[in-house]
């Protein structure tokens, strides 16, 4: 068989049809199989919180060691707007492209406001 790493890109449409728990479970099951998951639309804060907790429960010595998960910071409000006004202008939190992978195979090598660079090894 071909050596390599599977990458699953999950569309916003697909994600929006799932409940929070289904989303989190789908991602975690996928990553635990050694795959890289790219979400077109990131998780809501509550979902991210659930994902962290569920990840902690799945960690085993010499087995699954957790996830790497990165997304971009929320876009800054246009200059000149401040306080409440800039809050209103901000996009819904957790709405950006997100990459998630197994921690033992994926390393973030560079991360800036607008660029994420990751390195992935096959198992």
């Amino acid at each position, binding site marked *: 068989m071909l050596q390599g790493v599977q990458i699953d890109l999950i569309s916003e449409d697909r994600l929006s049809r799932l409940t929070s728990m289904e989303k989190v479970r789908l991602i975690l099951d996928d990553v635990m199989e050694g795959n890289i998951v790219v979400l077109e639309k990131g*998780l*809501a804060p509550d979902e*991210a*919180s659930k994902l962290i*907790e569920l990840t*902690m429960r799945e*960690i085993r010595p010499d087995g699954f060691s957790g*996830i790497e998960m990165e997304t971009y910071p929320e876009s*800054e409000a246009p200059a000149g707007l401040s306080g409440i006004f800039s809050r209103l202008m901000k996009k819904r939190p957790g709405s950006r492209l997100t990459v998630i992978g197994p*921690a033992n195979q994926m390393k973030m090598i560079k991360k800036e406001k607008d660029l994420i660079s990751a390195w992935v090894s096959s198992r």
Partner: protein
Amino acid sequence: MSFLIRARKKFSRFLRFFLKKNRSRIGIYGPPNAGKTTLANRIVRDWTGDAVGPVSEIPHETRRARRKENITITGTNGGSIVIDIVDTPGVTTKIDYHEFLEYGLDKEEAIVRAREATEGVAEAMHWLREDIDGVIYVLDSSLDPFLQVNIMMVGIIESRKLPVIIVANKIDLPDAAPARIKSAFPQHPVVSISGLEGRNVENLYEQMTEFFG
């Protein structure tokens, strides 16, 4: 402790009787090893004389949240707050016991530490969801903010709509660059301190009375 703090500590004890019983719980959050417990100990020592918990260069030293009740902090402007300080385990998305072997722990100890650390992370998240009224988010200013900060974690804190103060810690280190942290968090107050040496903690107390009051 400086003379100023000592004088205000007396004043704080006096005030405690008059302030409302309904104290806010301030959680000290941040990645493993950022200096959360060192800072919690300093705050608690400065204002009550006690300590919160042990500190270590090995990550995940704190694996249970610890609360210290009834701390009255008075700023230089005379404003006072009474809070509980909650020192939390460092939040991360990955824990591998092999990391602890490099610090000289044997395999069994390392595996236990890793398991406790996973429980600690879940506990820290639980406190944030249920029992925290304000957050001090501690970062190591000698490290790249974008690589150490989990943006998800920041999103989770922001979504709770809690008051947040960002602490750029360890400014005593030669490669500290707190300006990077300031530019990473344009929407939040950022205070640069050394929790270890106590540099600029006065300023943090000032901000705390302002934002957690």
